[in-house]
């Protein structure tokens, strides 16, 4: 607790976060081979990857729209925003169109319905980190030089099945044989993380609630958010119990939605931006860091239940590639599938000291106007959590912010943003760092 300093007291994005030195704590050892293999972009390729356009549907219960319609709507918005007329390849993040919609092979389906005849397309799945993983594939493809204009989308249509059907589909992100089999739900798994965190670090019920309150406040300013009403700590604490200590207002909703971004090399981007007046006046947004890691799929297999090692690993890779430290980040979109998740993620990202993440929302540190606004979009909690689309939607928000297009929720002087997307209880994680050029 001694290490926590309210971030609001700091006056500039450029001051170094004083927590940094302890923030990536020494117990994290990176596998030797990974470090050996890992090289920064500069070492290996001279291509720079830019996000040229973004688009998304509003999160919600889109009864009238099919899986393919949702995806195409978001993809067309991104294509229009970028001003490209053709794409070279596609990646689609989607967790379980098989269980939600009885439809696999959506790479073919979506390329077809997007009218992109014969374009290479690949679906990527990593549970709720599917969108982030797809983004990394697109980043990698532009780096590799195989294609120069790549569309990365994410989609999930979750309301075509009953709540029980959706609960089942989501449970397949956990170890089906050693977790779900015994009757646990995802709220239940995160509730156990919350209980352990409260017990060990003194995190309070109110601190959990503050995360939801903050994200709903942010969401109230986002026209793409599923929920735009503000909520209070009292409402969260007295909302329906789901899995103690988590209530319904600690949980992200079941959402239909899609999102998309257009990636290309910086050289190509310059050409497009020159021909597109609306882009010419805005900064280009470059992906400067990408990291990905895994952890045990079963929560109980981890040495420390409260520690998200995959998040810490992925973040470390992304920081290293971008040449940034946690204190250099101006704003972040993180995976607040449950209120406790945002708390543990901030710790794993090195934004908060281990055990001190509970104070971030409570102190205003992560609110709009705070030292480091987190989830200005409303996060998964208020913007909605169409699981496979979430990782891409995070990038959409960061691009809007870095371009200065975020309206009422604009973070001033935002030039460096981070996205953090995870699957299951943190069994997989993808982190990206984006900068305005």
């Amino acid at each position: 607790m001694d290490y926590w300093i309210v971030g609001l007291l700091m006056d500039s994005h450029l001051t170094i976060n004083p927590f940094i030195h302890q923030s990536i704590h020494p117990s994290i050892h990176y596998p030797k081979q990974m470090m050996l293999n890992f090289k920064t972009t500069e070492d290996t390729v001279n291509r720079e990857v830019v996000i040229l356009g973004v688009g998304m549907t509003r999160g919600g219960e889109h009864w009238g729209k099919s899986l393919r319609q949702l995806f195409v709507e978001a993809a067309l918005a991104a294509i229009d925003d970028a001003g490209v007329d053709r794409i070279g390849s596609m990646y689609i993040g989607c967790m379980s169109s098989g269980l939600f919609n009885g439809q696999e092979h959506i790479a073919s389906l979506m390329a077809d319905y997007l009218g992109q005849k014969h374009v290479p397309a690949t679906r990527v799945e990593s549970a709720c980190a599917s969108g982030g993983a797809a983004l990394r594939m697109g980043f990698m493809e532009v780096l590799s030089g195989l294609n120069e204009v790549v569309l990365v989308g994410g989609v999930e249509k979750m309301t075509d099945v009953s709540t029980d059907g959706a609960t089942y589909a989501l449970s397949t992100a956990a170890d089906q044989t050693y977790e779900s089999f015994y009757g646990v739900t995802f709220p239940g798994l995160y509730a156990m993380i919350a209980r352990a965190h409260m017990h060990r670090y003194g995190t309070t019920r109110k601190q959990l609630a503050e995360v939801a309150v903050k994200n709903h406040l942010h969401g109230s300013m986002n026209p793409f958010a599923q929920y735009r009403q503000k909520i209070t700590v009292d409402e969260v604490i007295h909302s329906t119990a789901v899995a103690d200590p988590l209530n319904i207002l600690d949980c992200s909703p079941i959402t239909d939605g899609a999102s998309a971004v257009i990636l290309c090399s910086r050289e190509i981007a310059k050409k497009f931006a020159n021909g597109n007046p609306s882009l010419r006046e805005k900064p280009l947004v470059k992906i400067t860091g990408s990291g990905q890691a895994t952890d045990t799929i079963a929560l109980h297999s981890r040495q420390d239940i409260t520690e998200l090692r995959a998040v810490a690993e992925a973040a470390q890779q992304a920081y290293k590639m971008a040449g940034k430290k946690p204190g250099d980040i101006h704003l972040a979109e993180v995976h607040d599938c449950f209120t406790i998740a945002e708390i543990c993620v901030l710790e794993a990202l090195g934004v908060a000291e281990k055990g001190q993440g509970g104070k971030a929302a409570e102190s205003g540190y992560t609110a709009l106007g705070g030292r480091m606004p987190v989830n200005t979009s409303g996060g998964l909690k208020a913007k909605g959590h169409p699981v496979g689309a979430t990782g891409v939607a995070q990038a959409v928000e960061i691009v809007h912010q870095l371009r200065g297009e975020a309206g009422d929720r604009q973070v001033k002087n935002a030039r460096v943003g981070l996205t953090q997307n995870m699957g299951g209880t943190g069994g997989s994680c993808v982190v990206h760092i984006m900068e305005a050029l």
Partner: protein
Amino acid sequence: MITPAEYVREIPAHHRLEAGRCKKCRKIYYPARQVCPECQAREFEPLSLPREGKIVTFTVIRVAPSQFSDQAPYAMGIVEVQPGVRLLTQVVDCDLDKIEIGMPVSLEFRKIQEDGEKGVLAYGVKAVPR
């Protein structure tokens, strides 16, 4: 909702708590594995886990999957049976308000769920506070 085939394959683990100890670094894994994440060794010796442990963390599930809805609300906990060796299970036969982190429990053989469609009864262990 695991398939009957998956249930049958994993009976030694679910019913008898069969685990594997890495012959090289001695770390114990439940369920048994083919490779040791610590030392990459691939030889393990079988052992059965002790049936007593303590609660590492827990929750009370109030909104349950359909095949467990007739049991809700029910408690679930991560139980540590030896330092670093843990499993997830229900915590039963106790007042839900009295469960605490660190509480000693016994692991008892119980029915876990019924698969209504196929009529398969599946068994495993549940934790009972001592």
